[in-house]
């Protein structure tokens, strides 16, 4: 469908998945990962997407311009583990047409 974007997601076992994500369903990256079951239920999106658990942390590997980090995301990442400079919370990244070709890697469970 034309409103879909393609996103490359590396799961926690290092397997790369190229998935189609809809831009018109108010979905975020965490939800896309869950909808394709790329991480076991109960290990991602634990807080439901409130930037309160960091179970959807991922590393952004492409140069896409993403929405600026809000205070709660920044605060959560400051308490999370395995955080790198390119860490983001998937639940705070709504899927938009600008994300076509985005590449991310899921951070380890922690």
């Amino acid at each position: 469908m034309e409103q879909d974007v393609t996103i490359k997601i590396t799961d926690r076992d290092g397997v790369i998945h190229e998935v189609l994500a809809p831009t018109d369903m108010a979905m975020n990256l965490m939800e896309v990962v869950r909808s394709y079951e790329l991480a076991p239920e109960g290990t991602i999106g634990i807080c439901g997407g409130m930037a309160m658990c960091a179970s959807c942390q991922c590393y952004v590997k492409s140069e896409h311009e993403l929405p600026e980090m809000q205070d709660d995301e920044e605060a959560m990442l400051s308490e999370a583990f395995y955080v790198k400079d390119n860490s983001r919370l998937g639940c705070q990244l709504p899927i938009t047409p600008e994300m076509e070709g985005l590449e991310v890697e899921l951070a380890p469970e922690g």
Partner: protein
Amino acid sequence: MIKTDILIIGAGPTGLFTVFEAGLLKLKCHLIDALPQPGGQCSEIYPKKPIYDIPAYPEILAGDLTEKLLEQCKQFEPGFTLGERAETIEKQEDGTFIVTTNKGTKHHAPVVAIAGGLGSFEPRKPLIHNIADFEDKGVEYIIKNPEIYRNKKVVIAGGGDSALDWSIFLSDVASEITLIHRRNEFRGHLDSVEKVQELKNKGKINLITPAEVIGIVGDEKVKAIVVKQALHIEKEFEIECDHFVPLFGLSPKLGPIGNWGLEIEKNAIKVNNALDYQTNIPGVFAIGDVNTYPGKLKLILCGFHEATLMCQAAYQIINPGKRYVLKYTTVSGVDGFDGTRKEAPKAVVKAIE
């Protein structure tokens, strides 16, 4: 030994509503929860966040929902074993169950309802290579008894409410309190942040930011921690202390329930959703976010429905062959185990002259 009719594992919204539905059938409930307070995720993760899909509540805060559920089930006098995790289950010859917690508290019931959500909340442990060697030897992830810190040197790490609140509390108890956080900003309640600022200015809290604890020093017990601070230039130094308390929040783990011989799929317990939400072990039910079946939705309102049907099945197990028909609370009222009665006011009959 605690005896009850339905032993509920998990005191979140689904578990609490079970108490009410069971009470209507004259069944008594007891709840076990690893957290020190009832409410589950609603009180632990997001008490101040609104929920919009509870029927008849256009908007309700998760913490308020917990309060309302406690109020609704109060007259059925639920028992609570809080701050303990259900560890083992043993089926008795008569088909009843004994569930024992990690602290050895035993519970005996003919029916067990697992309403465990995503599992029991366990502290998130920071990635410090030798931290496991010092657990209970000066490293504690949860503060249970603040008195053990009296006149001791304590280091707390973390940037949320519990790190702030305990730093404030222990500033009057410990001989020295140090708070370490990865950045200068804290995300706790504004008054907690201000209080820490005030105590820092008075020299009662030693604040080190932006910094991280990267190691622990000691033989038998904690003697010091190694801190890496990235202020202007990066440097590493040691802080002498008796206790190191990392407070990085809690994350849910299915835990020991996973070893009870239940059929597990996708970190959830498979149940018979066509009938009564029973698991593969007769007499053990799973309701709310902890269960799975085709089309499952992890919603509080679905947990309420599942709890209601489960109670009917529990009634049949506990009272085999005993007749019962569903009654409406509006018609029959609610008779509490505490002797209270709620009922609809009688209609007034008055002649028109």
